[in-house]
């Protein structure tokens, strides 16, 4: 939907202050960045992580007392979707390695497990590749240029980004495997953007000391995901993928090993058992839990399921006390709300403005600071711009990029977004965009070791579902890298365990029963089940009429 007459009036103000802002920028007179003290103050008061209500201690389980987002705690303080006494534990499928989740980490894991000789089954909630990996635009980091960069400097950058809290062994694995992983993607045929002689083009990302962000135009994640998917599907004898089927619970055996999952067919609504010698959790992030009601950049299936399944089986969680918000998500038009507007807009000079078309924050503060400043402007100073549907936003002045870098720049550099907005009647090379912080990345997750292994034998985790690699804050480009590096590592390790470590044993869900007892004792989770599987966007007016009393379907 194009801008309303009211919004067009406000855009006139933006246009009025633009020539002066462009002139200042051309003269190098930037708005000053905040001092470290100012940054801390705005973070403390306005960053969603720092709000008093933003955390609640978990009431049960191995991390009892650890305070994290209440929306995630809700999923942990919930009963299983199934009655553990009723599940038929006779396996319907048996495999060596079971991969849960067909995103980047899952596909990489499947390919590598097969290479080690394992038979692999992939269960995935939507279709393989309908995942956050597909949506990444910006790029993938790797210290690929020996004359100026090395894993050493990559490591320093990763730690600086993560507030120096990262688990050293994991950060080391990430940066040391990076070149080989990138070369692997290259050999599989990923069309990275290159010079004619094969040299990879690289740019900076937030917090990098060397230009090591590699990209495939502005659809890097899609290029990696569709290539990995194609490769995984290339071995139908060895890798079997079942779409629209979620895992909902881990299954253990009486030797104390992870030995499969309870799966759920979204169409027939059957729950059935898959037996495996090793399980890799690769379910990705949790943006669709809409922490603190924020909109999200994540795909439809990002509901944090892996956290719940692992936690019920006693695997610890870590680094979930921070959540990454991206400052510039779309807040208008509604049809594309929450969608990511890449950092590159601000990198190329677009100012951030309030309702009076005044600059209130330098456009290139770190992500968390920038986001907090937007929230302060709207919540405290009431200088945000209201959208017709009652949301709020600030201006991202994209047209000034053309004024700065020449006509046609916006269309050329941001062709995807330019086309997308045009479909809604907005030309972003002529009209600014309304943006607001959006939920972007789950910084933490299941605790893993350098091979993706967890405290539960036979159970591995890789990708956004795992925590520790990025400490308290992930830098752009390190997540695509992480899913490939740790997906590969977990795939190899799980195949190894399937060969050498796994033991036959009677399958059981005792851990779920015990968890239920603990919930019962604490008086928690009586009215909730999890994992969430899919968000619920059904119109509440329709819901009033959905009166079935005795049956709980996919979501209800």
């Amino acid at each position, binding site marked *: *939907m194009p801008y309303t007459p009211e919004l067009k009036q406000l855009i006139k103000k933006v246009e009025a202050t633009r020539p002066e802002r462009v002139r200042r920028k051309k003269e190098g007179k930037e708005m000053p960045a905040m001092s470290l003290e100012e940054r801390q103050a705005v973070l403390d008061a306005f960053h969603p992580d720092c709000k008093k209500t933003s955390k609640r201690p978990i009431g049960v389980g191995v991390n009892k007392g650890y305070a994290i987002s209440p929306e995630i705690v809700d999923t942990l303080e919930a009963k299983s979707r199934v009655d553990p006494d009723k599940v038929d534990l006779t396996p319907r499928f048996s495999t060596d390695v079971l991969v849960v989740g067909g995103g980047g980490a899952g596909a990489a894991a499947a390919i590598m497990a097969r290479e080690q000789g394992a038979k692999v089954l992939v269960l995935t909630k*939507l*279709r393989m590749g*309908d*995942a956050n990996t597909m949506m990444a635009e910006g790029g993938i980091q790797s210290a*690929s*240029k*020996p004359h*100026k960069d*090395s*894993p*050493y400097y990559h490591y*320093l*950058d990763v*730690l600086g980004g993560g507030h*120096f809290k990262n688990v*050293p062994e994991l950060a*080391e694995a990430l940066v*040391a495997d990076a*070149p*080989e992983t990138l*070369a692997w993607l*290259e050999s*599989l*045929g990923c*069309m990275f953007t*290159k010079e004619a002689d*094969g*040299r*990879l083009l690289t740019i*900076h990302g937030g917090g990098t*000391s*060397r230009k090591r962000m590699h990209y495939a135009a502005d659809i890097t994640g*899609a290029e990696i995901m569709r*290539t990995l998917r*194609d*490769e995984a599907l*290339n071995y*139908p004898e060895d890798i079997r993928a079942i779409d*629209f089927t979620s895992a909902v619970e881990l299954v253990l055996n009486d030797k104390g090993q992870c030995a499969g999952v309870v799966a759920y067919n*979204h169409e027939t609504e059957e729950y059935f058992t898959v037996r495996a010698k090793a399980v890799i959790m690769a379910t990705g992030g949790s943006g669709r839990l809409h922490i603190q009601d924020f909109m999200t950049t994540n*795909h*439809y299936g990002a509901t944090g399921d892996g956290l719940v399944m692992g936690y019920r089986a006693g695997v610890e969680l870590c680094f979930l006390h921070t959540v990454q918000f991206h400052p510039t998500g779309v807040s208008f*038009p*509604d*049809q594309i709300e929450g*969608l*990511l507007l890449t950092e590159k807009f601000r990198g190329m000079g677009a100012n951030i403005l309030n309702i009076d078309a005044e600059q209130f924050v330098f456009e290139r503060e770190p992500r968390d600071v920038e986001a907090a400043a937007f929230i302060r402007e709207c919540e405290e100073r009431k200088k945000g711009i209201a959208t017709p549907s009652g949301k709020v936003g600030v201006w991202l002045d994209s047209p000034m990029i053309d004024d700065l870098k020449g006509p046609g720049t916006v269309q050329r550099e941001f062709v995807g977004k330019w*086309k*997308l907005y045009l*479909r*809604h009647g907005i030309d972003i090379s002529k009209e600014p965009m309304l943006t607001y912080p959006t939920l972007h990345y789950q910084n933490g997750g299941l605790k893993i070791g350098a091979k993706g292994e967890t405290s539960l034998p036979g159970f591995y985790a890789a990708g956004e579902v795992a925590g520790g690699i990025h400490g308290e804050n992930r830098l752009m480009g390190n997540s695509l890298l992480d899913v490939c590096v740790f997906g590969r590592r977990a795939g190899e390790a799980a195949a190894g365990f399937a060969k050498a470590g796994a033991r036959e044993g009677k399958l059981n869900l005792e851990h779920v029963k015990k968890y239920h007892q603990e919930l019962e004792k604490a008086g928690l989770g009586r009215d909730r089940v999890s994992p969430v599987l*899919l968000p*619920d*966007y*059904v*119109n509440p007016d*329709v*819901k009033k009429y959905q009166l079935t009393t005795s049956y709980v*379907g996919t979501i209800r």
Partner: protein
Amino acid sequence: MEPKVNLIPIHIMGKQYMVPDVLTVMKAMEYAGYQLTRGCGCRGGICGACGIAYRLPNSYKIEVGLACQAMVQPDMYLAVLPFYPNKRGVHDVENLGANVDTFKALYPEVFKCVSCNTCTKSCPMSIEVMDYINAAMRGDVRQAAELSFDCVMCGLCTSRCPAEISHANVAILARRLYGSQVVPRAEHLAKQVKQVKTGKFKEGLAKLKSADLTSLKELYKAREAEPDNAPDEWAPKSNDYL
């Protein structure tokens, strides 16, 4: 002020619902009461999970689009195509030729293309689908790869093709052949991989791993930053740990 809602009729799989005229088809379905389990992935126009086919009143045309991108229109009559059976040739990309024989072997139906251009007209990403199919027929891997680069693999072209071609799979084969065999490999990357394998960076990383917080922060602050506008040849003053 309550936002004013203008309701229009649309027909989802043959049933009429009144929905706000400002919604995408995907959101309109949810407004109507659908809980989507299929036909929804990224919700952002890149995963290709949400193909739809529809007709508008007084038109013989079958239109196609992505539910997360297409806006509702009065009296549109639509079906969701969240899955379309595609043919996929099994191959080993490293041992295939980047030439026409590969397409002949894996996707012979490509050569039955009747040049009707319906694929191109039905592409929600505005890709010149027929042109890249023609490029594949000529063995022009580069052009097939470049023209198809934005493909989201929704399968709408296949659903409309009289020659029954699985375009998206032909396209990804072309891109993988191009990326792995036609474009030169990055030499600097291969060199770095070798250096990592010889253990060149082990010692430096070990130092960092065991460094205390204060010295780590010092090292972090002291690291030399490559300037934004520096050419690729830029090199830091210190060669340490490179």
